[in-house]
């Protein structure tokens, strides 16, 4: 099916259904998730719409549901997660649910306030109890005037200070900390102290009140105190019983509510969505018919029709809804049918811009080129293996991860297939770069050998070794280089060479340029596919051909130079630098010696540069001039042949409205953007080299400075040190090399796609198809 290469063909359909069957039909369409309702009342404000009251009712119900959920969670009652509710919400359900919710809310609020008052009373009684208990211990100082009470523990020092200031030490203050029981802790978790003040005067009471301490009347004689204690104890027992009963009642109510909570929530959500959709439709004068306009994929028209018939049957209405497809000039939304594998890639394309209607979709190509370009920058098979395993873990346990409802983890889980492919390609590029945690594999035997460099074959003797620290192997001495390159990837000898970067830099830079030009040529070719699909053959000749010739003649030739220099044997002294060759080619400078790679280089290069320069005016002027000529032709022939021409050259007629200056300016901008962009984008692909170099160097640092240090320790403690160092190595590898470098390479690969690849062919100014879908609503919450 071609639906993923291009967005699907959409049609605008008018629906007529009866008001009674409206809810059922929209419910069916919502379950189907394939239609997008168009707003038929765009001028009205939100509170002017017809069903605004019902929407408000639904929102009120949602608020009550949230309150209920909070209470249920606070009391640690588990909410049964599984629910299969296929009941269709109809208008009378709204009233029913509404009254039920109101009643529940009232009940719960009442229970809560009752419980709070009871708890307060309980606290007070317990405080009196404690006071009476410790009072006997204070009674060595018999005095008439005293005040007893309970104060918060942390305020006690301040209280003492105030008393000193007030009475100048003319008082006795005793206090003891309350050690609370379990149930008191639940009711009132603040630490409190019991205090008794023996003092003259009454202003003490006002001060105590300011400290929010509670005062309790305490009788003077022991007998009255004892009676009070028994009294208080009985009251506490009664209160305990009542509290227990209240809690039990609250729990039963909440459990009963919790059982239905999910079902109600989904019902209310659906109803709100249905009313919202109804607000978008038109109701005719007789109040009996609802008119709706929907965008729907052409291939799904049948299923939509079946769903509507099903809905109207359920509501028991006699007439089936009418489906009427209409032609329109408006641009339909862009719909790309995705499955769980392709949705990640489609979302990273859409993040830049949703494609125009029926424009070519870069996503299927991105599925391979994006992980591949990432892998070129990440290139380490050890790290790639770890990344692949991590992605496998995410894929196999995705349900478990989704339950955690953490934003970062959700993003990781959404991209699990992207990470999987990135890891796989990284293993491959790591094998080719011959880099596994900064070490190389030597599977086939290196092509370089040291022995031929020694006497009598070559220039070295044992003294040469003693004299200098580093020596260069010379490929011109026979036998040093075997003549056959290492069969798979970079030769392992470069890993132990001190000039490894000289070779790798040259190799990786040229590789980046080749990959870049290939990627961009691919992008330009996709624009050809677009032109052919939209039957825009004029643009093929006016835009595609000059673009391709420009790119091939300059950068295609650069690639030819690179490949030629690689394949042809030459002495290193006489090998010209490709960069200098290229610069001299553009400047037409052939004066310096030894600047030819092959015999006919000068005429070929002059020809190519001239061709490239000629492409610029072709791109710049051909299309606007052609449009200008059509414009004048039309104006000349407009009077007598207007009608026939109108049908024949409709496009040109439309462009009459656009001024010619606009066309010239637009084409000028496009030409400049393309030509300068060719050069800057090719250079931009050098980031492939830069990031892979950074990754390799970081990897080597971790090896040399962390793990190798522990491996070189010869004493017995070395094994313990190795264990500790390996832990550090692992943590640093994961955080720096996997997470940081991974994110960095991800970002740069994304940028290469969004800018360098897509600006060759992608317009990306469409709008996304957002169908009414209950599944999507449920996944989003």
């Amino acid at each position, binding site marked *: *099916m071609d639906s993923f*290469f291009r967005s699907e063909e959409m049609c605008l359909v008018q629906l007529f259904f009866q008001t009674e069957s409206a809810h059922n039909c929209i419910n069916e369409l919502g379950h189907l998730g394939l239609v997008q309702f168009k707003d038929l009342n765009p001028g009205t404000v939100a509170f002017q719409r017809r069903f605004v009251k019902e929407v408000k009712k639904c929102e009120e119900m949602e608020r009550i549901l949230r309150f209920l959920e909070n209470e249920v969670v606070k009391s640690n009652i588990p909410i049964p997660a599984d629910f299969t509710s296929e009941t269709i919400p109809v208008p009378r359900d709204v009233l029913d649910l509404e009254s039920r919710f109101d009643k529940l809310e009232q009940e719960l609020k009442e229970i809560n306030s009752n419980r709070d008052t009871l708890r307060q009373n309980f606290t007070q009684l317990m405080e009196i109890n404690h006071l009476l208990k410790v009072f006997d211990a204070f009674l060595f100082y018999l005095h008439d005037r005293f005040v007893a009470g309970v104060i918060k523990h942390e305020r006690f020092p301040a209280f003492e200070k105030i008393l000193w200031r007030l009475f100048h030490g003319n008082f006795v203050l005793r206090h003891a900390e309350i050690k609370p029981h379990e149930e008191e802790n639940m009711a009132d978790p603040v630490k409190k102290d019991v205090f008794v003040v023996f003092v003259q005067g009454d202003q003490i009471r006002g001060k105590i009140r300011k400290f929010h301490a509670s005062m309790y009347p305490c009788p003077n004689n022991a007998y009255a105190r004892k009676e009070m204690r028994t009294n208080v104890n009985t009251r506490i027992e009664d209160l305990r019983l009542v509290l227990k009963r209240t809690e039990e009642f609250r729990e039963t109510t909440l459990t009963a509510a919790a059982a239905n909570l999910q079902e109600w929530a989904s019902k209310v959500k659906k109803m709100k969505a249905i009313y919202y959709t109804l607000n978008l439709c038109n109701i005719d004068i007789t109040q009996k018919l609802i008119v709706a306009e929907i965008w729907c994929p052409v291939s799904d028209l049948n299923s939509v029709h079946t769903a509507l018939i099903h809905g109207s049957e359920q509501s028991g209405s006699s007439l089936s809804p009418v489906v009427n497809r209409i032609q329109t000039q408006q641009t339909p939304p862009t719909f790309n049918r995705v499955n769980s594998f392709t949705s990640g890639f489609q979302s990273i394309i859409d993040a830049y811009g949703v494609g125009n209607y029926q424009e070519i979709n870069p996503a299927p190509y991105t599925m391979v*080129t994006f992980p591949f370009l990432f892998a070129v920058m990440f290139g380490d098979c050890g790290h790639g293996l770890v990344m692949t395993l991590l992605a496998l873990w995410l894929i196999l346990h995705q349900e478990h991860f989704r339950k955690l409802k953490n934003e970062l983890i959700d993003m990781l889980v959404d991209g699990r297939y992207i990470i999987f492919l990135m890891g796989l390609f990284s293993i491959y590029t790591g094998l080719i770069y011959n880099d596994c945690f900064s070490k190389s594999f030597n599977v086939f035997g290196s092509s370089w050998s040291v022995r031929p460099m020694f006497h009598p074959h070559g220039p070295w003797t044992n003294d040469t*070794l003693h004299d200098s620290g580093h020596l260069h192997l010379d490929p011109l001495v026979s036998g040093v280089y075997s003549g056959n390159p290492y069969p798979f990837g970079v030769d392992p000898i470069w890993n132990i060479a001190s000039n490894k970067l000289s070779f790798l830099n040259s190799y990786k830079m040229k590789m980046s340029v*080749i990959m870049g030009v290939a990627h961009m040529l691919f992008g330009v070719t996709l624009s050809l596919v677009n032109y052919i699909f939209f039957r825009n053959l004029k643009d093929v000749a006016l835009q595609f051909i000059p673009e391709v010739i420009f790119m091939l003649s300059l950068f295609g030739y650069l690639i030819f130079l690179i490949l030629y220099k690689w394949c042809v044997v030459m002495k290193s002294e006489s090998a010209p630098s490709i960069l200098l060759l290229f610069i001299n080619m553009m400047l037409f400078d052939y004066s310096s010696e030894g600047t030819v790679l092959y015999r006919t280089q000068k005429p070929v290069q002059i020809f190519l540069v001239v061709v490239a320069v000629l492409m610029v005016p072709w791109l710049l002027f051909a299309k606007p001039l052609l449009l200008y000529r059509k414009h004048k032709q039309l104006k000349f022939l407009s009077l007598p042949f207007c009608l026939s021409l109108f049908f024949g050259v409709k496009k040109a007629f439309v462009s009459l409205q656009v001024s010619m200056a606009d066309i010239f300016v637009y084409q000028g901008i496009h030409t400049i953007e393309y030509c300068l962009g060719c050069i800057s984008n090719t250079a931009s692909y050098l980031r492939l080299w830069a990031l892979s170099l950074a990754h390799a160097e970081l990897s080597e640092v971790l090896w040399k400075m962390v793990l190798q240090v522990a491996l070189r320790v010869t004493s017995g403690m070395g094994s313990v040190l190795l264990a500790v160092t390996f832990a550090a190595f692992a943590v640093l590898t994961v955080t720096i090399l996997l997470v940081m470098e991974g994110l960095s390479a991800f970002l740069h690969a994304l940028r290469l796609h969004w800018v360098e690849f897509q600006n060759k062919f992608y317009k990306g100014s469409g709008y996304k198809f957002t169908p009414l879908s209950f599944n999507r609503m449920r996944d989003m919450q």
Partner: protein
Amino acid sequence: MAFAIPMVIVTLFWGFVGGVVPWFIPKGPNRGVVITMLVLTAVCCYLFWLIAILSQLNPLFGPALSNDTIWYLQFHWR
């Protein structure tokens, strides 16, 4: 001669992946996408390998080794 063997093997391998396997993908909604992925993978990976081997075909300079490494390699590598 020893250069031709890896050249042929790898070219045949990626040629098989990109040119032969697509014919055997069963018909279904994902056929086009799978074929695109196979072809693109084959092209990208083959190109990458090819660049790696061509860049080492005619080296202009050799590796610079420390004398310890040279001493070791003299005896341990053939």
